[in-house]
């Protein structure tokens, strides 16, 4: 049986300070071995873990000024405060797929919201009447549904909403589908909406995930994880 043993070296016979020539440190960096910290946690917050197919990292894109391309597995965090417009600054391309969570932190209740849509505007742009939207819902008024082909962006919420949705980006088929709770309005708090919305344009490339727009000032955060 053959064993391969790395070279452990230390100055003057003392404790080894390198393994196969790599130093150990609790500050992550290139060619550094990182041990568990005093709490038994492998803290890689300054860097990330990557395999051939997946990256494990959260990037804070709050206040970003240019688009960032998430790698598969990477997660973006964007916080916003009293905003009506939140650019995500996430680059995208055909063949990608994402999971998103939009969390509003505004106080719960049946007033304070505006009766209008929350949109994801792809490419930070509206495209007149290019989007279709379908939903089924339950609110205080009962069960209902609607279908519209006159939207100019992806509708993904209403007034104040907490939203979970999935984004498919093929240039030839672009879709968002998910569900949300609405609050800040009568007949809601809570309510449940299941929706799907297509960008009915099979040639325009979706290159920037875009900007979220709210019908009133909203606060909270957005998580976007790239899955493919």
């Amino acid at each position, binding site marked *: 049986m053959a064993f391969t043993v790395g070279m452990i070296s230390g100055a003057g016979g003392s404790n080894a300070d390198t393994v196969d020539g790599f130093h150990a440190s609790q500050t992550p960096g290139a060619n550094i071995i990182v041990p568990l910290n005093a709490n038994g946690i492998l803290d890689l917050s300054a860097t990330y873990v990557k395999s051939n197919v997946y990256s494990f990292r959260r990037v804070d894109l709050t206040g970003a000024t240019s688009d960032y391309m998430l790698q598969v597995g990477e997660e973006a965090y964007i916080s916003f405060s009293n905003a009506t417009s939140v650019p995500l600054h996430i680059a995208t391309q055909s063949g990608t797929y994402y999971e998103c969570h939009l969390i509003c932190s505004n106080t719960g209740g049946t007033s304070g919201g505006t009766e209008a849509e929350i949109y994801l505007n792809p490419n930070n742009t509206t495209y007149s009447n290019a989007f279709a939207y379908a939903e089924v819902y339950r609110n205080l008024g009962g069960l*209902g549904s609607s279908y519209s082909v006159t939207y100019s962006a992806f509708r993904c919420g209403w007034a104040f909403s907490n939203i979970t949705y999935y984004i498919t980006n093929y240039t030839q088929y672009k879709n968002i589908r998910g569900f949300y709770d609405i609050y800040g309005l009568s007949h809601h708090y809570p309510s449940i909406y299941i929706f799907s919305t297509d960008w009915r344009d099979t040639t325009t490339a979706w290159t920037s995930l875009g900007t979220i727009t709210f019908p009133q000032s909203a606060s909270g955060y957005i998580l976007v994880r790239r899955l493919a």
Partner: protein
Amino acid sequence: MKVWAYIHPQLNILCCALLPEAVPQGIQALEFEVESTDDVIYDGAQIRSKTQDEKLQEEKQRKLAELKNYVASLLSPIDYIVIKIAEAQVLGQDVTVLKQKYAVQLQRRGAIRQWNEQMEQAINNAKTVEEVRSIKIEFKG
């Protein structure tokens, strides 16, 4: 919010960029300060922001649709009573007993319809978008 509106050269539709850098190169865009991207329109001759009256009419239509859905949701659970009475009438039966049996529900239906008319009138009479938005659709009968 600020938006930059233009007619897309390939798609030939109105587009509004939410960031100045989202305007495609070589395109002349018009800058607008609006509440929502929905407030910019192309009327066939020019790109412009909606007038206050256009916004008011839209808000009224939205509120009336909300009212219609709400009233339907109040009435539909007791629609079977009306159908039952209508069936009895078609078959030439005496509906007096049925009317007595369901008197409370029938009275409620009448009250809902009366309230619906009052709400429609209030919405149609509203003079501003804010006034329309402030109308609460809730039947308390």
